């Protein structure tokens, strides 16, 4: 059976259509003057926040061969061309055209943008990989699905205990070990004990901290405090650390860990994962008020000091069944 590729949940800026703005352009009638005109314009009228625009466009047609960007048209003002302080010889008739207001971030935005005006484009390799549908190897997809299957089993246990059917699994992807297994406890009395909050506290327990006391009946198991001070040999190296030496780093919160959760987390849990410095989140089913793609995108919210990657649709056919009647 082939597994579904997890779908990246990316920031809205990568998905938006191309935003346009008005600029004045002028024809250059004598092509031989173009180099001089461009040079003079770059001094007299720098492009400012329109650096992504190519200054000149060549137009195929009988009359006009080249057009050059002069300056941004002020919004709301009349579109009558003025000198605007520009004194350059050889500029022909002037008029307003719409051009992309911002540099394109994806190939798709680039293809849209160049229909208006030539722009430069620096493709983000990571983003290309994410959007390719081949970001993960077959083996990785299988591994993700296996972990999600474990989270699914936790959700089933939760359901059997008359709790909300949400399961959460925290994994150290370097050592490929499960750090915490949790399920939803909010209906056991405390409304904040969502599966993700429980999982985060279990990670704290694994590091010799933790706040909530869980008994065996509540939580399936608390995976071994492998990384406590008393086990110095078992400290792990964090992914993305300096590669040349095997630097041993004390675990700090959920840094470098992955979370597998059957349902898209709410805003409280998503922000708890920011505070906890989680590395990646994989979830199964989306929910309308969810905060990792549906209602908010907390993982890529501008202004926050930590961002993590999010992938959805993992084992979704199964997880959707958990939430069908809801």
């Amino acid at each position, binding site marked *: 059976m082939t597994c579904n590729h997890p779908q990246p949940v990316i920031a809205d800026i990568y998905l938006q259509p191309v935003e346009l703005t008005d600029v004045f352009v002028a024809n250059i009638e004598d092509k031989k003057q173009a180099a001089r005109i461009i040079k003079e314009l770059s001094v007299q009228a720098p492009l400012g926040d329109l650096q992504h625009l190519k200054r000149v466009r060549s137009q195929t047609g009988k009359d006009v061969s080249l057009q050059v960007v002069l300056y941004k048209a002020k919004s709301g003002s009349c579109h009558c061309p003025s000198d605007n302080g520009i004194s350059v010889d050889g500029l022909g008739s002037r008029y307003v055209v719409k051009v992309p207001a911002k540099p394109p971030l994806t190939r798709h935005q680039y293809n849209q943008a160049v229909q208006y005006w030539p722009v430069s484009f620096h493709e983000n390799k990571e983003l290309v990989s994410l959007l390719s549908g081949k970001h993960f190897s077959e083996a990785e997809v299988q591994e993700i699905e296996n972990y999600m299957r474990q989270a699914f089993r936790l959700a089933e246990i939760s359901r059997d205990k008359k709790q909300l059917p949400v399961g959460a699994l925290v994994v150290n992807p370097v050592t490929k070990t499960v750090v915490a297994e949790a399920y939803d406890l909010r209906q056991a009395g405390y409304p904040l004990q969502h599966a993700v909050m429980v999982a985060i*506290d279990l990670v704290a327990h694994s590091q010799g901290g*933790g*706040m909530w006391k869980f008994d065996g009946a509540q939580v399936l198991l608390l995976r071994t405090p492998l990384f406590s001070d008393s086990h110095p040999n078992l400290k792990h190296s964090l992914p993305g650390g300096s590669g040349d030496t095997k630097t041993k780093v004390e675990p700090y919160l959920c840094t470098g860990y992955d979370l597998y959760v059957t349902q898209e987390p*709410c*805003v409280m849990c998503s922000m708890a994962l920011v*505070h*906890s410095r989680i590395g990646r989140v994989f979830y199964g089913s989306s929910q309308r*008020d969810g905060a990792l793609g549906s*209602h908010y995108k907390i993982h890529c919210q501008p202004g926050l*000091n930590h961002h993590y990657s999010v992938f959805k649709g993992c084992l979704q056919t199964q997880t959707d069944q958990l939430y069908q009647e809801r």
Partner: protein
Amino acid sequence: MNEAESIFIKWMNQALAIAEEALKAQEVPVGCVIVYQENIIGTGGNKVNKTKNATRHAEVIAIEEVREFCLAEGLDEKDVFGSSTLFVTVEPCLMCAGALRQIGLPLVVYGCANDRFGGCGSILNVARDKAISSSIGPCFDVVSGVLAEQAVTLLKTFYKGENPNAPDSKRKVKDTEPGRVLALLAPGSPSYC
């Protein structure tokens, strides 16, 4: 000063005292009290470092104290939270705003804005977002700016790594607009709420 203001200041001073205790314990100095029928029934200071759990913010800890209070007094949690007010020295973060909605707390009074994590308008307005009410509970009302300067001074002291027990003359606390200092804090510093 009207009556409401003087009551706010009275309780906020209690929250500030708890923030100072957090500072002495080398936690991010945020303090919180929950007031019910003119009595404090829960208090909390940040305990992120002690518990190695980054979600142990002052509000969450105070909420848990209230639950214990309800259990001891035989009171219904929902009723008690539903007629309590939370005073916290710093604007609740996105996580705490989500938590406060779920326990149904109707009014939050805070000191300074939280430019990095604030969930009552600074980053997002989770407190007032009606669209998520069906899953996360009712919106809550917010009063801001109560004793903000004092809250900021405590945060500045913490992030500068100064000894809070040093005599006043040796402290280097420069005047900064309340709230502004939060924007200057270095990335990767411990989280506060």
